[in-house]
């Protein structure tokens, strides 16, 4: 469901780029790069999140501002990809309730 996708993107951005500070989350149509929330390294994290969390493949030519610059564009991109795959939703959210749960667990683990 599009609203769910939007909410999950917003949660990921808050947890990953804003250190949990919801007050800094921009409106859906504000550029994440112009607001200095996401840089090139952050784009890689967003791509990884989309692929792992929503279980959708993202090709290099799709990693462009038209798909990644705002929350609204990200939501539209993901929704379109999910529709192509014939499902309304990818993987279930992480058990912690945070959409970035897998990501957070990776950060907390010890490097072998």
């Amino acid at each position, binding site marked *: 469901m599009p609203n769910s996708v939007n909410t999950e993107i917003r949660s990921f951005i808050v947890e990953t780029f804003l250190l949990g500070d919801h007050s800094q989350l921009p409106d859906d149509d504000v550029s994440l790069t112009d607001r200095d929330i996401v*840089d090139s390294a952050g784009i*890689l994290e967003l791509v990884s999140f989309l692929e792992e969390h929503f279980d959708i493949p993202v090709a*290099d030519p799709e990693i*462009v501002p038209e798909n990644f610059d705002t929350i609204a564009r990200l939501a539209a991109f993901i929704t379109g990809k999910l529709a192509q795959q014939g499902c309304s939703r990818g993987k279930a959210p992480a058990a912690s309730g945070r959409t970035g749960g897998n990501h957070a667990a990776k950060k907390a683990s010890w490097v072998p």
Partner: protein
Amino acid sequence: MTGIGKRFCEKALRLNATAEVERIARWLRTELRQVLRKRGFVIGLSGGIDSSVCAALAARAVGPERVFCLLMPERESDPESLHLGKCLAGALGLDGAIEDISPTLEAMGCYERRDAFIRQAVPDYGEGWASKIVINTALTTRAYNISSLVVRRPDRTIQKHRLAPHVYLGIVAATNMKQRTRKQLEYYHADRLNYAVIGTQNRLEHDQGFFVKNGDGAADVKPIAHLYKSQVYQLANHLGIPRRICCRTPTTDTYSLSQTHEEFFFALPYREMDLCLYGLEHDIPAGEVAAATGLSERQVGLVWRDMVAKRKAGNYLHQPARMIPQAGY
């Protein structure tokens, strides 16, 4: 227009090499004696143009007998780097040492850690393979700099892989041990001799954050950080730097596959980058920069956007440790 009847072009980067060399030499002497209070300079030579010019400037400033140079190859270095570094040291009459940093890097797990990260993307990676990180530049991606891993298999075939963020960061973090190990040795010799350490970044590298924090970015003086790369070449010519060094394609000499600066970091070769940076710093209209570089106005806009983004991303590289301001009591 940059002035009545004048169009922006490469001439904007021309300097009086004689005067600039003397100005830098004077500044180095003053900084060394009055601010740093040291007796000479240590410099790491890479066989490239920047470190060669810095060494020649240091020798000009305090005499070759007070400049100690270090050649620090490791097992993945291009042998040409060591050869050219030796040539320069000989030409300038510098004392120095060759420090092979391979055993140190092995002991710290530099290669092993890096290869373990690479294997997360390329499970077969191992003996006989080689690799490098490359970037899709602003001119090809329309906005984002997405780094990829290029590997060469033992059969010489090449593969390119987009990396998960933690894999990319892990490879870069392990590789940065090379620059930090070299700096560690520079400061060992500097402490031993009561010398200061020279940093060799040019203006483009300094501005865009093309260095490793506490690695090649660490130094007591940076005598060419105010000069565009084109101007460094002008000084090289004036200082008589060997032609083979001046003609060498700038490389990082950091990965096991040969890697140019443009592949790893910059959008364009240095001549165009210099002109774009100069245009950005001096508010030259995009149309004039486009005419000077052979790019389109749209491409100049993309390069400028990329430059601003790299400044933001690299801002932390220039920061000393942040401290809480003094409380008002």
